[in-house]
């Protein structure tokens, strides 16, 4: 599995997109995602698979937070923190990229 890096967290208005990839929903709520250029899959777990799915249609931290606020009672700051961490891990694993 790919390791997470330590780059700066993504900004909330920047737009991101998922790169071309294949994926599998595997046991215990985990998701394997592999970009077409990678040799091994990245494992997503916890809330990351949900954020990964939302990233398919919502390209910024703000948009994803707005979607998650409809489902969870946590404060926007707490949700945003989780979303930033997840997106950063997607960027580090090269399964998502910034839209330029």
């Amino acid at each position, binding site marked *: 599995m790919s390791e997470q890096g330590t780059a700066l967290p993504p900004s909330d208005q920047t737009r991101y997109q998922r790169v*071309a*990839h*294949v*994926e*599998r*929903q*595997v*046991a*215990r709520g985990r998701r*394997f995602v*592999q970009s*077409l250029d990678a*040799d*091994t*899959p990245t494992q997503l777990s916890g809330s990351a698979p949900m954020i990964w799915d939302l990233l398919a249609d919502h390209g910024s931290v703000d948009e994803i937070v707005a979607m998650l606020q409809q489902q969870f009672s946590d404060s926007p700051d707490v949700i945003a923190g989780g979303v930033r961490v997840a997106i950063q891990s997607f960027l580090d694993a090269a399964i998502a990229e910034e839209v330029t």
Partner: protein
Amino acid sequence: MNATRLAERIASLGLPGSATEPIEVDASTGDALIAELTTNRVLGLFVSGLEAGSVTCDDGVADRAVAAHDEVMSQSMRIEIMAIRASTILSDAGIDHRLLKGAGLAHTVARTPAERSFRDVDLLVSAADISKAVQVLIGAGAQRLQPELRLGYDQRFGKSVTMRLDDVEIDLHRTLCPGPFGVWMWPNDLFLLKDSVTLGNIGIPTLNRTDHLVHACYHAALGQVVPVLSNLRDIALLAGVGGADTYDAERFDETVARWKGRAVVRRAVGLVQSRLDVDLTTSLISYLHEPVNSSELAAIDPYLTEDPSGRFAALAPSTLRALPMVDRAAYALAVGLPDGTSPRDRVSALVKRRR
């Protein structure tokens, strides 16, 4: 219940007619069952059964099954990426093709792709294109694993050309099976209709559902003496279980009749019925009761050679008989005296092959 029977029950999960009570796996059977399910490419059904509560076992067996399934899925994803790459290479070269079997079925027929694993990439190209397709893949870095027996053999007689690219095996098919049933089929029929499966945001051409079912039957009946359970489940899923066909039964019957394949479908349906707990559609069940030409029935025998290394030699005589007269000399020459072998070496090789 032994591991083989347990695997059959697990391969039947979710199919109409299968048992609804939970399948209990005891610790002493667990590892043998995981191996059996992996070989039969249905480990994903065990894992999804665990999550749904339709399979129960102790935590140790569950952990080992999940770890094994993770590994299988990693391999399948790698192969899926190669399917995308190979298909793109062929498309860029203007070569029409169809993705066959595992990678195509995992995303279209299986309940989820995680329930259907596969080990290689299978692509169908027309006889007219196979030499070009081989060259194009070689140009992309693939290696051909066996040389062509004689110039033109691939296009006239070969079932497939096996290649390897980045340690992934690619089978470039001209027909769906070797031997007489390969001679009797009309592979160009499979290019008349086309479905598509989206892999990695790319649309990959694949067989029409009815053609997938024809292929699944041929693969199950003729591919191995004991077919893997995923192939049998494919047949049940493609046919539509529980009374309603989800394929074009009329077209299926016409194809099977034209390809002299009634005995093939009869054997495939019999295997599904004997190993899976499933109510197949009446259209398929009818193949068990309809009369079959005795020469078609007899043609199955050489496919059921226990020793896989002896299969080519076992099929050669019946292939020769099935070929039109005009092709027989060329086939016999290619099989008996391939390019690059002296007659003495070839005789020696054949003797070794038969042992």
